[in-house]
């Protein structure tokens, strides 16, 4: 069985939310890839600035069950690694780099890959229900790094996914891109 991948479009946002709309229902799965940075001048010691994914405008606060994320956090200058996890979280969170933060450089960017399986499914009970996994990483060469790994079975959502969005409360800096691909299997 072969896979054919088609590029569906690119977002280049500077607003708080960025959304792919009118997603064709002709594919089997979706893949989203992003290279992004939050437009935040915060001086927090945390390089992460909290990004979020939404489907059909829902950030996971209601319709989505089975979500969990775990993330790794480590310093380069102080090799202390930490791991944390959050089951049944109420938002679809991803580690996101901020423009600057205290004690480090201002050129930390994050990358994200999200895979959305069976995105056209309207089933909430069968094996054909929608599922999503996403990975996000921040690598700041001067100091610390983040890696988040998240998964969500969209078991309580009977609507096919027609829009996919990314949010950061500070907006995205110029140069941020999100690409969307359709994967056809068969």
């Amino acid at each position, binding site marked *: 069985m072969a896979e054919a991948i088609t590029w569906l479009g*690119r*977002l280049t946002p500077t*607003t*708080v939310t960025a959304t792919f*709309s*009118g997603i064709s229902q002709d594919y089997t799965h979706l893949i989203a890839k992003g290279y992004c940075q939050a437009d935040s001048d915060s001086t927090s010691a945390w390089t992460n600035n909290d990004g979020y994914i939404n489907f059909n405008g829902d950030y996971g606060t209601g319709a989505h069950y089975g979500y969990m994320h775990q993330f790794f956090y480590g310093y380069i200058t102080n090799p202390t690694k930490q*791991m944390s996890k959050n089951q049944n979280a109420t938002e679809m969170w991803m580690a996101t780099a901020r423009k600057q933060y205290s004690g480090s450089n201002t050129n930390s960017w994050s990358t994200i890959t999200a895979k959305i399986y069976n995105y056209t499914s309207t089933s909430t009970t069968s094996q054909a229900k929608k599922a999503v996994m996403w990975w996000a990483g921040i690598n700041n060469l001067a100091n610390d790094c983040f890696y988040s790994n998240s998964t969500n079975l969209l078991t309580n959502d009977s609507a096919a996914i027609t829009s996919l969005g990314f949010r950061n409360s500070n907006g995205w800096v110029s140069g941020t891109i999100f690409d969307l691909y359709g994967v056809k299997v068969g």
Partner: protein
Amino acid sequence: MPSKTVFNCATGIQTVVELTAEEIAADEAFAADEEVRHEAREAELAAVAAHKASGEAKLADLGLSVDEIAALVG
């Protein structure tokens, strides 16, 4: 007026459009407790770090070297 960036996959066109009143309300509701969730994540990390440090100190008290502790806990 708050706005959002939309790429319409059907037309291949990106636009920046103003949020509707409903979208603004939803956005404000989401943002209202965003800081709380952020602080919860930071607190969880701090707690993990504290437990790790405490565990490493106890291992040191047992006579393990720094390298041995690092090999065990990373």
